[in-house]
């Protein structure tokens, strides 16, 4: 416990977390600080490219593990399955309509790549290795949750049919393509490719992440300010319980698959995190009746900061106890 707290404390005063807090505070205080949309998108492209590339290089260096396929399958199952658990929890803990609950559930089955990146950063800071292909697992977990959510809605007769073209859109979503593409470029060019571009994708990475989290803080704060009263205490409770539940299931999956300590932590983080970029856009197409304030407030306003500050160190501590190391 002591250790968890000191870990969490160390985590809390990193520039990354403090940048997020700054953005959050600025937005709540109604400062006019904003980051231009193009710059925010540019940073997200940079982060996806860098994280994908580095994952690919790691695979090219360490070779393809036997557990690679198992991990991808585990990711798929988790992404399909977690929304069902989330949906059940939401039915118990909140009074959300079927459609809103399904939309929220889709977010929690999918993942937040920034949370993943922040966790990688914490692992690196503690010199804990992780499987490079966890990036590919992240990519695999982006979309399936949406299908589960649509199925949940269809089952209860609430529409939510699969729009023609939506499936292709989901799979060829810009972030997935960039992450997977950069992964393959990294895997093909390997250490030599990395050497060529590492002053771009390795050295300044954490600094860019700070500014990106500043932006996420701004957006989260703005969302929280506008959604006062939209989400009840039950929903907020869900947004903290669900990541814990997800992380435990991710822990089990990681152990079953046989991942290293770092890999297990990342699997927990993927399971615990909730999407707030790709899935919201998909929901506007597939479940337009669902209220965006609800799912954005929960995933970006509650779960994201929870994971960033307390979640990641907690998952790491738990994994260290279970895995040892």
């Amino acid at each position, binding site marked *: 416990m002591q250790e968890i707290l000191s870990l969490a404390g160390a985590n809390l005063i990193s520039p990354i977390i403090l940048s997020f807090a700054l953005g959050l505070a600025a937005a709540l205080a109604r400062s006019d600080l*904003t*980051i*231009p*949309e193009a710059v*925010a*998108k540019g940073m*997200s492209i940079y982060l996806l490219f860098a994280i994908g590339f580095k994952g690919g290089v790691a695979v090219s260096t360490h070779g393809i593990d036997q557990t690679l396929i198992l991990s991808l399958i585990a990711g798929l199952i988790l992404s399909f399955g977690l929304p069902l658990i989330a949906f059940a929890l939401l039915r118990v803990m909140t009074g959300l309509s079927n459609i809103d609950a399904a939309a929220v559930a889709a977010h929690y089955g999918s993942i937040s790549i920034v949370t993943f990146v922040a966790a990688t950063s914490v692992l690196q800071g503690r010199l804990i290795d992780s499987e490079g292909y966890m990036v590919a697992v992240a990519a695999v977990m982006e979309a399936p949750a949406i299908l589960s959510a649509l199925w949940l809605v269809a089952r209860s007769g609430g529409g939510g049919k699969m*729009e023609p*073209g939506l499936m292709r859109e989901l799979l060829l979503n810009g972030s997935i393509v960039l992450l997977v593409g950069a992964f393959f470029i990294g895997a093909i060019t390997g250490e030599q490719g990395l050497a060529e571009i590492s002053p771009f994708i390795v050295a300044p990475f954490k600094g860019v992440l700070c500014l990106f989290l500043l*932006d996420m803080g*701004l*957006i989260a704060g*703005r969302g929280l300010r*506008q959604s006062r009263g939209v989400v009840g205490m039950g929903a907020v409770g869900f947004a903290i319980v669900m990541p814990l539940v997800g992380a435990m299931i991710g822990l089990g999956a990681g152990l079953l698959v046989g991942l290293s300590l770092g890999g297990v932590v990342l699997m927990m983080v993927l399971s615990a995190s909730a999407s707030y*970029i*790709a899935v*919201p*856009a*998909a929901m*506007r*197409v597939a479940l*337009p*009746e669902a*209220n*965006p*304030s609800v799912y954005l407030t929960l995933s970006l306003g509650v779960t994201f900061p929870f994971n960033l500050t307390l979640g990641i160190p907690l998952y790491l501590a738990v994994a260290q106890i279970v895995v040892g190391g």
Partner: protein
Amino acid sequence: MQTHTAKRVEIVIEAPLENRLTKALTEAGVTGFTILPVLGGSGRSGVWTREGQVGRAGMVQVVCLIKPERLDGLLDAAFSVVEKHIGVVSITDAQVLRAERF
């Protein structure tokens, strides 16, 4: 200068729906449209702004100039997409140069 009667239809719609809208318009025989960016706005679903957004967030404004007789087809097509979604549609009477284009 010779001008021709036309309708100017302006549709504010969520960005993730843009492709579906332009596809529906094209299928309804609309041959031209222009898409303008939108910075932010306010409506029944609250206030929003594009600032700092990363995904396909926000809205766009699609502008179509068409011959008056094609208006109904266009509105049907637009409505089929906008119906369940956030967004507004307005129509104004306009004059255009070079009628052969519409």
